[in-house]
């Protein structure tokens, strides 16, 4: 049993790292404006498809890894200005519905452009092998994902603590009115914040396309675990999203080992338990959602 445990735990941690990247993006968007982005998965899928198209035209995987999310950010900011901004004054449930509608449109559009079947997308050969870890052989690409998460977290932390813009963002999360009164252009703040969240979604999307399949319906499967992660980690806390992601990853791995049938629904049960016992999650702050 111990022999089985180590690979599962390690695998769970790395999987959790992936969920964490998705959750952080979602959390960023939620924290500042209370926007529940049901189209987060759609943005991820878009990044995956764009990366696929770029690589098909001869660019390297590394170029696509940065370029695709950047293109998606542009789309994201357009969406934010046109569709999300009018809903800032209203309750979160409106943004939930609107972005849900957006995800329906996106799925059909992807089907039109890239076809109904999946498309093949692989990490470069250097990353597509295995690493012998003693107790198991582990995919190099997954290690890369864990590394990518660490880089993303460090970059985000630097941005939020050491740059003026990041400082304003954190201030705005605490008290938007005050920072507007102090002269900051909150509209720019909202747009950049949304763009940042979408950028992370884009990165996660390219990584997901390398690890999983890529089809018009790919985004849906990752959306719910991401939400559960945010809820468990705590809405309003980026640190919570990271911890939540790791917990979810390990929970899924461990339930697979002991009660496989329950691993999908265990996520929802966990979510319900957290919502009932401590709705703001492990590290969440009161405020936007009461």
């Amino acid at each position: 049993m111990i022999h089985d445990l180590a690979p599962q735990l390690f695998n769970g941690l790395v999987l959790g790292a992936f969920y964490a990247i998705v959750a952080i993006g979602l959390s960023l968007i939620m924290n500042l404006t209370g926007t529940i982005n049901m189209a987060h998965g759609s943005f991820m899928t878009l990044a995956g498809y764009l990366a696929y198209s770029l690589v098909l035209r001869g660019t390297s995987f590394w170029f696509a890894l940065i370029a695709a999310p950047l293109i998606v950010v542009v789309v994201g900011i357009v969406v934010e200005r046109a569709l999300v901004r009018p809903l800032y004054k209203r309750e979160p449930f409106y943004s939930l519905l609107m972005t849900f509608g957006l995800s329906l449109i996106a799925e059909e559009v992807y089907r039109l452009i890239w076809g109904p079947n999946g498309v093949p997308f692989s990490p470069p050969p250097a990353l597509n092998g295995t690493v012998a870890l003693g107790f198991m052989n582990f995919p190099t690409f997954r290690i890369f994902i864990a590394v990518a998460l660490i880089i993303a977290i460090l970059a985000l932390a630097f941005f939020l603590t050491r740059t003026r813009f990041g400082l304003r963002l954190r201030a705005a999360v605490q008290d938007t009115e005050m920072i507007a009164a102090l002269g900051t252009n909150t509209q720019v703040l909202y747009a950049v914040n949304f763009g940042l969240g979408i950028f992370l979604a884009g990165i996660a999307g390219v990584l997901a396309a390398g690890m999983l399949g890529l089809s018009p319906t790919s985004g849906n499967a990752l959306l719910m675990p991401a939400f559960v992660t945010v809820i468990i980690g705590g809405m309003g806390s980026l640190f919570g999203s990271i911890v939540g992601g790791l917990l979810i990853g390990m929970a899924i791995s461990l339930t697979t080992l002991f009660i496989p049938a329950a691993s999908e629904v265990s996520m929802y049960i966990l979510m319900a338990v957290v919502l009932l016992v401590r709705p703001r999650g492990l590290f969440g702050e009161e405020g936007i959602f009461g």
Partner: protein
Amino acid sequence: MTARSELIVSAVVVAVLACAPFLSPLVHLDISIVSEVLVTALAVMSANLLLGYTGLPAFGNAAYFGLGAYGAALSVKYFNVDFVVAVLVGMLAALVGGLILGPFLLRRRGIYFGLLSIAFGQVFYFIAYRYTDVTGGEDGMNFPRPPIGIIHVVLREASFYYLVLAVFVVCLIAFRTVVRSPFGRTLVAIRQNETRVRYLGLNTDRFIFVALLISATMAGLGGALFGLLINFAYPLELDWHQSGYFVLMMILGGAGTVWGSLVGAFIYVIGKDIISTITPLWQIFLGALFVACVLGFPRGIVGSIQALRRGGAQTFADDDVNAAFDANAPVEIGRGV
């Protein structure tokens, strides 16, 4: 609207619906789709009670709808009950679902309530999906339409429709009675400011719980009838996407209005049927409808008509429950959704 004009409009609508079996072929629609509109309207009414009137994000009503369908299906398939009993079993299953989930849901408000509803709904979805031996799993289960006990007649297309229409009219009257009653008014008050209602000495939890049970039972009734309509029960009925569609229909028709549920269900169900016949891109239209409705039309059709009749001014009259959904509603009105 005066009581008399309301009665006239209602009579006209019911009369048109009564002629549906003759009207629908003229627009190339089968009467079964009109039946579907009516049973869906029941589910939308159930969401309306919770969300439109009481202000709680009801994202789990598909679970009760599905429980109704599966309740009817299982009772017919394994116990050979008759039509009426099948419907009652479906309603009972949904009611029990509400009784079990209620105490948990009551502990939260706002978006947490919504997320909890989704989570619980997914658990039911999982159960239906996993227990293949009993429920048929993701393939769903086929079951015949049983006869109505006393008269030993199996309802065919048109006669089934008339039964559904009768049930719908009864439910609509019941719904209207409930929302106009002191109980209903209390629900609206809860939406506007729950703390104040509690300070007045009322146990809001109890009111919400009863609203939940009514909502669950009505959704279950709709689900059972839908199952009997298509002779099938399947897990997708329980999925949270389906709850989302009910909410869309509610907003489209007019949240917090009596007739809004029917209008919303009509536009969605028939619109989807017609558009999907014309083009496989119907999902783009559906998504666009969601987006346009939320952004530009939050009052819905009936709500907008009501606002028009008030002269479009910013007067939020006592009985304009839909006012809270206006995009520019002032904060005092309490958008407790």
